[in-house]
């Protein structure tokens, strides 16, 4: 047989199986496109020039790895659906006298066609949407919009290599399947009598317990950041519980219904209950997948929306001052402190003059931070290298009362052996407090100002401690240095500068630049110097990156969900076709058939959606607390966004249902 024959046959096969191939092709094109876009964006030179663009590109690069892995799994999964459907066809070929090597050839050309078309179309749409994404990102990051065409050969090569590899693996997998099976097996395909599933009581109860435990954890974890392992455990428990409930819980429930004869032997229950038993046996894992992915989509969507909406508020919360400078002190603390204050104040004034802005107010405080592990009546400072591996570390922020009063206008007055303490996560309960060689009487001061600002409290909890005088700070600094060496923190003075209200962004920026260049020229040991404007830019870019990747992954997951549902429906329809044919002969009319199909499809379809909703509801409070991880502090609106995301998802889901249900009826009643 000539080469042209196989080429033509492969093309015909794809055309004839278009019902299953078109969605596969679309999903291939979409994955190629999305993968290209993420890669292209992550190396786009224009984006890296935007302030904060580097942060975003780093996130995108990480996202690319996730997307690549996901694409491979996803395409394999959908391909396996195709092969299951076509087994019979290959069986007929071998009965008709085609050898396995000929079938292999046909499969090879088919895969080649699919690969060529999807990579080509994927790259073209990729280039177009890449440009669109760049425009969107620039808009989100408030950078100027550049017109013109952008093309990334590097990303193209990456995509070619990645998807060439994936398709090659798919081809090898398909060939292996055909090689390993004999014609009779191929002919029968999936039509071998299937055992009725058994009720697994133990696993079903376990599923309920595991899910319940996950929910309990999600509801009771108070400080997710301190207990991040527990959070992971909760998530794992809920996922595991979902799989158990879908696989065994559903079947056990159906078995109970079936054993209730009076209920089971009724027209409206008979076919749905027995049908669902087999359906759940075959599809439980798929449904659980859909459920978990739905939760993922909903959470990603709500996080992304919340992020985008609340950026400005958070910037002001995180950076309350126009500029913040932190300078390490050396030698005698009091002298150094005064010198630093004078020098920075003068610097700020001259910078303000040059930038033609006026200072509103400046504030100073001197403090020391020490990482330590809370223990009974004391904080233990871990020595040396071990500090990086220590769990349960908190940060202690020490300040002397003079500095604290100066900063807040308070009138704190302590004895030399007394401290006031205030915890950001929970208050200190002991009456005495010892750290290294020092010992104090501790009293809680709940209303103490968290002078380090919110940036400091993001990761891990912390305690603010006011001591009597700066000499104590100095003693603590020396003892800590002896223990921690290079890891030890130094006493530092923080300078907070506020410009007059109503100062324009550009002016504020100029002021920041001048101040920073001045700071570089001094011999002071500057550790932090940031202005709200530049930090805000970085912050916005970071958020935009997270938002973009979040939305992107959300869409990808959604697409995967849609396709899995579609394929599931199609393959079930083919399975059910014969059964409904028989029922029609035995005396079931079209209307009754439709009714029974509808009730089954509805259950199968909306079970994951409802379960996803329950999951989101139970893990909601946990997610809200975790939002701090992505620097989102304004969590009050999160509920609204979550509900909105769920609604949006439900609408898309319902549309998919309508479309696939129609295809299903068509196949079954054909």
């Amino acid at each position, binding site marked *: 047989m000539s080469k042209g024959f196989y080429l033509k046959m492969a093309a015909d096969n794809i055309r004839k199986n278009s019902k299953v191939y078109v969605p596969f092709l679309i999903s291939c094109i979409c994955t190629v496109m999305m993968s290209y876009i993420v890669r292209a964006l992550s190396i786009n030179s224009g984006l890296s020039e935007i302030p904060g663009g580097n942060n975003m590109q780093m996130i995108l690069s990480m996202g690319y790895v996730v997307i690549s892995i996901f694409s491979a799994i996803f395409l394999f999964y959908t391909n396996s659906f195709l092969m299951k459907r076509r087994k019979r066809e290959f069986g007929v070929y071998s009965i008709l006298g085609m050898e396995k090597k000929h079938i292999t050839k046909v499969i090879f050309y088919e895969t080649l066609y699919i690969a060529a078309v999807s990579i080509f179309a994927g790259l073209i749409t990729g280039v177009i949407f890449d440009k669109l994404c760049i425009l969107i990102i620039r808009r989100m990051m408030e950078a100027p919009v550049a017109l013109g065409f952008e093309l990334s050969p590097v990303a193209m090569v990456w995509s070619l290599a990645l998807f060439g590899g994936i398709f090659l693996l798919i081809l090898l997998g398909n060939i292996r399947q055909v090689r390993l099976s004999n014609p009779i097996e191929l002919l029968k395909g999936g039509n071998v009598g299937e*055992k009725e599933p058994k009720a697994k009581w133990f696993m079903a109860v376990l599923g309920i317990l595991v899910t319940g435990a996950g929910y309990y954890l999600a509801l009771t974890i108070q400080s997710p950041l301190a207990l991040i392992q527990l959070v992971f455990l909760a998530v794992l428990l809920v996922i595991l519980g979902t799989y158990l409930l879908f696989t065994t819980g559903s079947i056990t429930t159906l078995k109970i219904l079936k054993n209730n004869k009076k209920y089971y*032997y009724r027209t409206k229950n008979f076919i749905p209950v027995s049908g669902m038993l087999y359906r759940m046996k075959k599809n439980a894992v798929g449904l659980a997948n859909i459920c978990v992915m739905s939760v993922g989509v909903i959470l990603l969507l709500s996080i992304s929306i919340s992020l985008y909406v609340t950026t400005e508020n958070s910037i002001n919360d995180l950076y309350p001052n126009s500029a913040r400078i932190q300078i390490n002190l050396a030698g005698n603390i009091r002298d150094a402190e005064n010198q630093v204050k004078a020098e920075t104040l003068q610097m700020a004034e001259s910078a303000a003059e040059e930038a033609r802005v006026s200072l509103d107010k400046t504030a100073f405080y001197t403090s020391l931070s020490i990482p330590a592990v809370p223990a009974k009546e004391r904080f233990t400072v871990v020595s040396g290298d071990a500090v990086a591996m220590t769990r349960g570390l908190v940060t202690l922020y020490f300040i002397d009362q003079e500095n604290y009063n100066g900063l807040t206008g308070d009138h704190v007055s302590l004895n030399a052996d007394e401290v006031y303490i205030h915890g950001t996560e929970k208050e200190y309960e002991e009456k005495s407090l010892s750290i290294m060689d020092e010992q104090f009487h501790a009293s809680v001061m709940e209303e103490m100002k968290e002078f380090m600002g919110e940036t400091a409290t993001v990761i891990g909890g912390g305690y603010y401690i006011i001591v009597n005088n700066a000499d104590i700070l100095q003693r603590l600094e020396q003892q800590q240095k002896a223990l921690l060496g290079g890891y030890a923190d130094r006493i530092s003075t923080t300078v907070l500068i506020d410009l007059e209200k109503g100062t324009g962004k550009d002016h504020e920026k100029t002021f920041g630049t001048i101040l920073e260049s001045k700071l570089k020229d001094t011999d002071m040991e500057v550790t932090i110097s940031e202005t709200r404007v530049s930090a805000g830019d970085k912050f916005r870019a970071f958020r935009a990156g997270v938002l973009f990747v979040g939305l992107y992954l959300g869409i990808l997951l959604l697409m995967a969900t849609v396709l899995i549902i579609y394929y599931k429906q199609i393959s079930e329809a083919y399975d059910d076709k014969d059964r409904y044919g028989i029922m029609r002969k035995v005396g079931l009319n079209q209307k009754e058939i439709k009714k029974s199909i509808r009730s089954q499809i509805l259950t199968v379809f909306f079970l994951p959606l409802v379960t996803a909703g329950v999951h989101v509801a139970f893990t909601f409070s946990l997610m809200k607390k975790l939002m701090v991880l992505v620097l989102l502090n304004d969590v009050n609106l999160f509920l609204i966004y979550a509900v909105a995301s769920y609604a949006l998802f439900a609408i898309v889901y319902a549309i998919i249902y309508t479309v696939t249900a129609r295809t299903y009826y068509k196949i079954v009643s054909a």
Partner: protein
Amino acid sequence: MTILDVRNLKKIYTTRFGGNQVQALSDVSFSVDPGEYVAIMGESGSGKTTLLNILAVLDQPTNGEVLLNGKNIVAIREKEISAFRRNNLGFVFQDFNLLDTFSVQDNILLPLVLSGVPYAEMTHRLRPLSEMLGIEKLLGKFPYEISGGQKQRAAVARALITNPQLVLADEPTGALDSRASDGLMTLFENINAKGQTILMVTHSIKAASHAKRVLFIKDGMVFHELHRGELSSEAMFQKISDTLTMIAAGGESNE
């Protein structure tokens, strides 16, 4: 008093694009009395299956009428067809048509469940029937766990459980080995002896020889008719095969 009266049935199939017309039945008329056991024979393409499909209300004739107990089933409204078939007709198919996802018991009960019969009544009917058919031990099994003959007996049980006016059988021995076929034919005779009217379409001379009357269809018409009378099934077998030979040789109808 006849239970089934078929009058001047005609069926013309038109291919999808209206090109060719195929006449499957040209003019078929016959009647069946209560308690009769009629076999319809004919070569492939003679119109047997078309006839059975029309009797089963699965297909509509182009012309003519079918009276079941005096009621014209051709005129039954679409909505009532399924209920009518469930209540009046029992079906036995060549390939059994048992549902793999139901146990034997559930397969048998399916028509009753669809008709909304209470569960107590179902078991009441199922017990004697399954004993008569010798499948009482198979009720909990699934179709893929039992042999072809057992499957066909389950299918017969499903056909009989609604106490139908008429049992329609389409090549019931077609997928069975000879021993299972003999068993099934004896079963049909027993059922018939209890007063059940049976109409069977078959290829098999052996199967047909158990019937009380055999109709031969050729080219869409009833070509010939044989009554068994007091003949043994062996003698009937001989008579049928003679008739078939004659039909194949292209002879005219006698008698």
